[in-house]
């Protein structure tokens, strides 16, 4: 049975890793765009990004399940593209996790970007730096910690998800069975040893990660001026 736990751990780590990577790729420009936005639709967009924070995960899972169905455009498109269904697949889980964890990455990044002195970007522009150059050479170096925080939160939140996975991922060991589902299974089948292993492990992981983050945020070599 512990072999199942290791399998679930592997799936979980893969899922969280891929999700975090995609979230950074989407989240960085999205957060930057939102942070500089003055349009009146900004609150609407922020609400959309933040929605997964307040909705029961099962609601999200339900709609994703509907969207993944081959009767719907998204499901159809995916089926045509890959020949397999999105629902009950690892890819489907990645899509769901990206949406589910999006606010945890975008929000800290957006807060950090809002703190950036836009005047510095103007200075960089007059010194010959184009828009991407300005972002890489002025914004990113000043938001290194928030970036790490955002990535860690995205990762940890994906590891901790349950409801969405349950709705759309099914419970296929080695494919879509993640730790939280494996734990549920273990308890259902009275396998308390596995349940303890998973639960204890997850608590340990979360504790180490959060301690690391807080240490980073309040460490002695915290940069001046912030």
């Amino acid at each position, binding site marked *: 049975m512990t072999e199942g736990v290791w399998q679930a751990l592997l799936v979980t780590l893969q899922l969280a890793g891929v999700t975090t990577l995609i979230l950074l790729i989407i989240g960085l420009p999205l957060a930057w765009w939102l942070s500089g936005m003055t349009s009146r639709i900004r609150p609407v967009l922020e609400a959309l990004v933040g929605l997964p924070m307040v909705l029961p995960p099962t609601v999200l899972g339900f709609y994703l399940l509907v969207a993944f169905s081959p009767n719907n455009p998204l499901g159809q498109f995916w089926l045509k593209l890959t020949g397999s269904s999105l629902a009950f697949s690892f890819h489907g889980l990645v899509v769901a996790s990206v949406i589910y964890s999006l606010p945890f990455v975008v929000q800290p990044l957006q807060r950090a970007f809002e703190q950036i002195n836009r005047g510095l970007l*103007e200075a960089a522009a007059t010194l010959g*730096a*184009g828009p991407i150059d300005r*972002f890489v050479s002025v914004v990113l170096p000043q938001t290194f910690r928030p970036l790490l925080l955002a990535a860690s939160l995205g990762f940890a939140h994906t590891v901790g998800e349950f409801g969405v996975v349950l709705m759309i991922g099914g419970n296929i060991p080695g494919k879509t069975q993640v730790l939280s589902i494996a734990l549920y299974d273990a308890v259902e089948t009275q396998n308390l040893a596995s349940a303890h292993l998973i639960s204890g492990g997850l608590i340990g992981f979360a504790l180490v990660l959060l301690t690391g983050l807080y240490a980073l945020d309040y460490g002695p070599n915290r940069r001046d001026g912030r």
Partner: protein
Amino acid sequence: MLTIDLHLQRPDFRLEVREQFGLAGITAIMGPSGCGKTTLLRCIAGLEKVPNSVIRFRDQIWQEGGEFLPPEQRRVGYIFQDGRLFPHLSVLGNLQYGLQRQRRWSNGKRALGEPELDEPALDEPALDEIVDWLGIEPLLQRSVTSLSGGQRQRVAIGRALLMAPQLLLMDEPLAALDWAAKISIMPRLRELNKRFDIPVLVVSHDRGEMARLADELLLMDEGSIVERGSVRRLLSRIDGSQADDCALSVLEGTVVRSAGFGMTELAVDKQQLFIDRSALEVGKNIRVVISATEVSIALDPVERTSIQNRIQTTLDDIRDIDGHHSLLQLRLEEQKLLALITRRACHQLGLMPGMLVYAHFKASSLEDKVML
């Protein structure tokens, strides 16, 4: 040549500038806060985009019709009031920022998001020269957060110069500095224009600073340019907007000889003028800024007085300033000098335009003498 045709109309703000700048020397744009001078500067740099405007620099079109050259391609150095140094970089890192991008530009590779630089060592002479000139060598490895206001502004000037700008824009470069820092930076700003042969446009609200710095002066009010001319002419005019109880005048003279006791004799319109500064090269041109309140009037030549400067002038015009004071415009030969005296004194002396009067002012009241 810089050609500007800007029209901006907002409910609370208007900018209407149609002007050509010859761009020889230092051009100052002066005016009360909110008159649009900073916006004008930002438009020239490309930091602000006003539709339906035209900005041309030499043979380059910076804005016209649908064309808009972004700031990073204009090669305009911009000195901000607050320095705007990058806090995550050292002083050296800040200095190199524009230099590196400039080099990539001249290598024909546009900087597009690759922060890693593949070029060899820095252009050491240029960097060294500017670091040396600004006297910031000891600061190079320091964090910019630990610098004083004057040091920050020097680094900002160096950073802008190192990107080899075709035009240098300065927005209140001295406003955030204390007096000592101003005194140390001002000659450098003047020298910069000559030494690096870069035209300078500087925005300020402080006429004392501009009297010392600028050659040409543009006075702005409520979004348009109301007066334009040489600093000497515009500031020393009695009927201009600058004629008030803070009026000052600018005299230009040539060093004649050392007068001993640490003094130097100048010739200003063939008359003697003494300044309390020594070791000046004979034949050099010097600009002297004299506050109108420092000048007193005598009808007869007074010989036995401590006041060093007694210049014979013709009284051109008298203007009441605030009910208590009169502003006098005095003409030497060609240059003009303003004196602020009380109306009572004006009455007692029976001053009338056309009279011959002696303008007295102490050599030590000339707190600032700028080399030209």
